[in-house]
């Protein structure tokens, strides 16, 4: 009984505390009011908002509270892209040894299964007598993209920041874009995507195409969600040899995580080229020719799974015979 009496505050104490709290709240309230009225005075910009009851109401933009969890990129923003940016990638072929770290990083970031490769590494050989070399290839985000022109539902689109993206909520899976792309960089979701439950329950994000949808086309997106935060794509970060440089053509900088270089100087000094330039698609990915190679091409077979090794057998064996 005594313990209860000590813990239970008396009426007098309670009223005293309540009175103090009331005065404090009133003081804070008047301060907040004066602050908000000052804020409202600062922006005269009116925003037309739709209420849950279906009424359009004009509210001063000072009163809008964008919640962190609600700050998802809208379809309009996703379509328009980032203003003042022009993303570009440079691939140094002399450094690639088919470590495939870029591929696994990409698959992990986009929650894709191992058999789906938005980024692939091919074994290229320019002529019979030339030595083969490893050639990473993903969507080139062309400035003149044939895939965008053929899409009947406007699901794939070109943005002002140079990216070519797919809205998987609009995609009807007709595969016209896959047929039109001369680089075969697009993949089709034949099966129901096996993604973690928390990803499957996400509200669809037009920039990341998460959650993935069965019967739609996918491809490399240059990770615009990371670019918005000023981060490099996972393939660039994961490469142990600094093969990929990613950056902004307008800022004239590209970085592979270790070094940041002038984009124009790099492509000029190293005689960069674009894959199948003659097609007129104007890709946004530049290749530095495989000169002064850091690794013999055979190193690309180290620790390679048998099913992947089988892809390249013909090319290397042919070279050995000659």
């Amino acid at each position: 009984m005594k313990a209860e009496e000590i813990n239970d505050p008396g009426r007098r104490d309670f009223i005293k505390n309540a009175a103090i709290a009331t005065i404090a709240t009133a003081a804070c309230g008047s301060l907040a009011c004066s602050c908000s009225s000052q804020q409202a005075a600062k922006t005269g910009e009116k925003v037309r908002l739709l209420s849950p009851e279906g009424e359009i109401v004009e509210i001063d933009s000072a009163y809008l509270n964008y919640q962190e969890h609600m700050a998802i990129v809208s379809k309009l923003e996703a379509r328009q892209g980032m203003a003042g940016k022009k993303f570009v990638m440079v691939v140094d072929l002399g450094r690639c040894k088919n470590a495939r770290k870029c591929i696994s990083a990409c698959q992990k970031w986009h929650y894709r299964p191992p058999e789906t490769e938005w980024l692939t590494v091919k074994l290229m050989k320019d002529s019979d007598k030339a030595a083969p070399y490893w050639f990473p290839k993903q969507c080139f985000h062309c400035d003149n993209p044939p895939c965008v022109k053929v899409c009947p539902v406007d699901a794939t689109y070109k943005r002002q920041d140079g990216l070519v993206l797919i809205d998987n909520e609009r995609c009807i899976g007709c595969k016209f874009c896959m047929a039109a792309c001369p680089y075969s960089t697009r993949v089709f979701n034949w099966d129901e995507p096996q993604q973690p439950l928390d990803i499957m329950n996400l509200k669809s994000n037009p920039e990341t195409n998460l959650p993935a949808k069965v019967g739609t086309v996918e491809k490399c997106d240059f990770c615009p969600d990371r670019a918005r935060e000023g981060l490099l794509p996972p393939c660039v970060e994961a490469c142990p040899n600094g093969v990929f440089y990613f950056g902004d053509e307008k800022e004239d900088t590209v970085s592979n995580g270790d070094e940041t270089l002038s984009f124009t100087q790099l492509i000029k000094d190293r005689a960069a080229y674009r894959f199948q330039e003659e097609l007129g698609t104007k890709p946004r990915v530049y290749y530095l020719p495989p000169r002064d190679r850091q690794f013999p091409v055979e190193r690309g077979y180290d620790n390679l799974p048998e099913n992947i090794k089988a892809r390249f057998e013909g090319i290397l064996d042919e070279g050995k015979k000659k």
Partner: protein
Amino acid sequence: MGNNQNKTRRGFFSQFLSADKEEKVKMLTPDGKLVEIDKKIFEAAAKKKLTSNKELYDWMQNPSKENK
């Protein structure tokens, strides 16, 4: 006494203290973003008039409209 708390002093004061909590209303911007605003501000601006389909179509900034 216990069942009728509003009539006690404690009930009266606790009601008074909790009345200061701001109620928020979720609303949609023309480009499809969810925002929260103070209910008092919303009620002051609302005209209690239901929007027509035409007004709603004109209000939204839908990318598909640009191609029409």
